[in-house]
């Protein structure tokens, strides 16, 4: 059996161990106590049938839960509590027998906070990592490093933003883009000519397309840009939108630039008599193949995320136009900005690759 499959299996085994450890972990949580629902069959009673002003029909149901506290000062104590839920589970939660949950105990009364979901993340993460090693072998190491690094930088940027209290957000996220793309490309490719060309193409792609979009927004007076509909806004929603657009564009542009520059670099190396025109044609052909699917990836991510809310607005008898304005228009704008970035990057990546020809003439091509 190949070594990479062996390593994948080892990751699966370690991951299963960690999953169990997380599932049973109770003492790592300080803020809320972990409790176990001891019922094998939860008493679930029908309270009433509801019909709201929009004509939606739902139910109110009550679960009676017997809890044993597993951590915190009340450890070992038993409580009986009830949980009211609506079967559509939009904001309420139905609990299951023998489930582990978080409770907040105040004045000897437990209030249910959340189901314990941490272990599910560990299971799926294990599966992802094992698959990555099984499919890519040794190459999994830089991929995983770059994944971890992205999260670390993202975390750092958020810390910085909170510290700056939301001021100069654009500057912060612009510099984050510059640093991140450099470090990430350096990890995957090493610092060399090809990587530097990719980096320059990425930065041009991100900033010029963002500049064009910003100009269009200004020229149209940001009409129907309903920043206030952005969810979970804790600071200036317009700043958040700009930062999200900058961040959302970066990954796709960087990946696309890597693709095009790598292939053209290969082409310059293997075809001694290639002319600038053929090089540009190849770059354009690659771009034509790549841009459609890549834009679709981002559109699906940006728009799908807003669907639960869109459905709710539509369900409550809003017109399609109103629902779109409230829930989808920001995501759609973000998608179009990203798409413009992806299209322009074809030009920048190809243009920057022309530099390889000049370097080759001087005999410095690596």
């Amino acid at each position, binding site marked *: 059996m190949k070594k990479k499959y062996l390593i994948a299996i080892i990751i699966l085994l370690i991951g299963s161990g960690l999953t169990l450890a997380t599932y049973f972990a109770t003492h790592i949580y300080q803020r809320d106590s972990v409790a176990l629902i001891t019922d094998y069959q939860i008493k679930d009673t029908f309270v009433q049938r509801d019909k709201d002003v929009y004509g939606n029909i739902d139910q109110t149901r009550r679960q009676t839960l017997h809890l044993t506290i597993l951590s915190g000062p009340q450890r070992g104590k038993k409580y009986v509590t009830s949980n009211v839920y609506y079967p559509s589970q939009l904001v309420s939660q139905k609990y299951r027998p023998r489930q582990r949950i978080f409770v907040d105990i105040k004045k000897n009364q437990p209030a249910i906070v959340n189901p314990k979901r941490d272990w599910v993340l560990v299971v799926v993460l294990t599966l992802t990592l094992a698959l*990555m090693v099984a499919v890519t072998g040794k190459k999994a190491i830089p991929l995983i490093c770059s994944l971890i690094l992205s999260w670390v930088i993202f975390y750092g940027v958020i*810390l910085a933003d909170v510290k700056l209290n939301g001021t100069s957000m654009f500057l912060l996220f612009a510099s984050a883009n510059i640093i991140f793309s450099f470090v990430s490309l350096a990890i995957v490719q090493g610092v060399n000519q090809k990587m530097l060309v990719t980096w320059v193409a990425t930065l041009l792609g991100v900033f010029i397309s963002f500049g064009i979009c910003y100009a269009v927004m200004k020229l149209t007076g940001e009409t129907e840009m309903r920043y206030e509909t952005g969810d979970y806004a804790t600071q200036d*929603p317009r700043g958040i939108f700009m930062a999200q657009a900058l961040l959302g564009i970066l990954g796709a542009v960087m*990946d696309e630039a890597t693709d095009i520059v790598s292939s053209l670099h290969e082409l310059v190396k293997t075809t001694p008599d290639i002319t600038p025109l053929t090089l540009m044609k190849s770059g354009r052909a690659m771009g034509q193949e790549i841009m*459609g699917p890549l834009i679709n990836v981002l559109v699906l991510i940006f728009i799908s995320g807003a669907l639960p809310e869109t459905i709710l607005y539509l369900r409550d008898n809003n017109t399609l136009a109103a629902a779109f304005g409230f829930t989808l228009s920001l995501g759609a704008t973000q998608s179009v900005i990203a798409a413009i970035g992806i299209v322009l990057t074809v030009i920048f990546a190809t243009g920057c690759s022309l530099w390889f020809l000049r370097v080759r003439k001087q005999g410095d091509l690596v």
Partner: protein
Amino acid sequence: MSTLTALIVVLAILMTIVGGEAGIRSFFSVLINTLLLILVALLISWGINIELLILIFIPLKLVTIIFLGTHNGRVAKNSFVAALIVSVTVSVLILVVQYFAQAAGLGPEAGEVLVGLSQMPGLSYPMIAVAVAMFSSLGAIAEAAVAMSSGLLALKRAQPDISAAALKHSGNRIGTDVIGTALNTILFGMFGSFLSLFLWYFRLNYSIGQVLNEKLFVNEALIIMYSLIGVLLTVPLTTVLLVEGITKTEVKNEK
């Protein structure tokens, strides 16, 4: 003209200039894809069975992404078969994981959004969460399938007498590139989509433990991983399907 319309016009012009005819087709592929997603939302809100909608719309969306986005018939056919098999596999995974994660609906953070809206819409939000996860991962799966198929077929065209084993070997190399390409796109797409949520967690002093058990965070993190798993499965499957397909046609030609 509203800003969104103006930006869409700019995009259409750029895609036509850079992509030519292929660019125009890609533009319509993206447009139809978006409209289909909105149609799904509309149909779900009318109370039409969500499972049925998923079954209809997964193949339909793959067709729009793959057949409209690529102009080589063979690439498209091979990509479609691979993407469909992977989508079904990932969908099964999503069904199982979402059952245990119980991360459907809107979190307590969404309180402000919900003012004036029904909290009892009479729709199954756990099933809606499954649908959202499936649709989010579709794009990445389709992209990987197209990139793999076109990469391998280009290689076959350049070296017509390449052996099946050598083709599979190159498949590994191309596959790594394809995975690398998808990785940042997915991750930063999600960061860009949920920056405000992360800022919310920080400003309201959530502990790491709380965030890791919080409905919306868990849901987002899971969607990133479903997409990655989809891409990782697509790479070897597309290679195998394509190599088998090529060998079969060769045998036919010899007879």
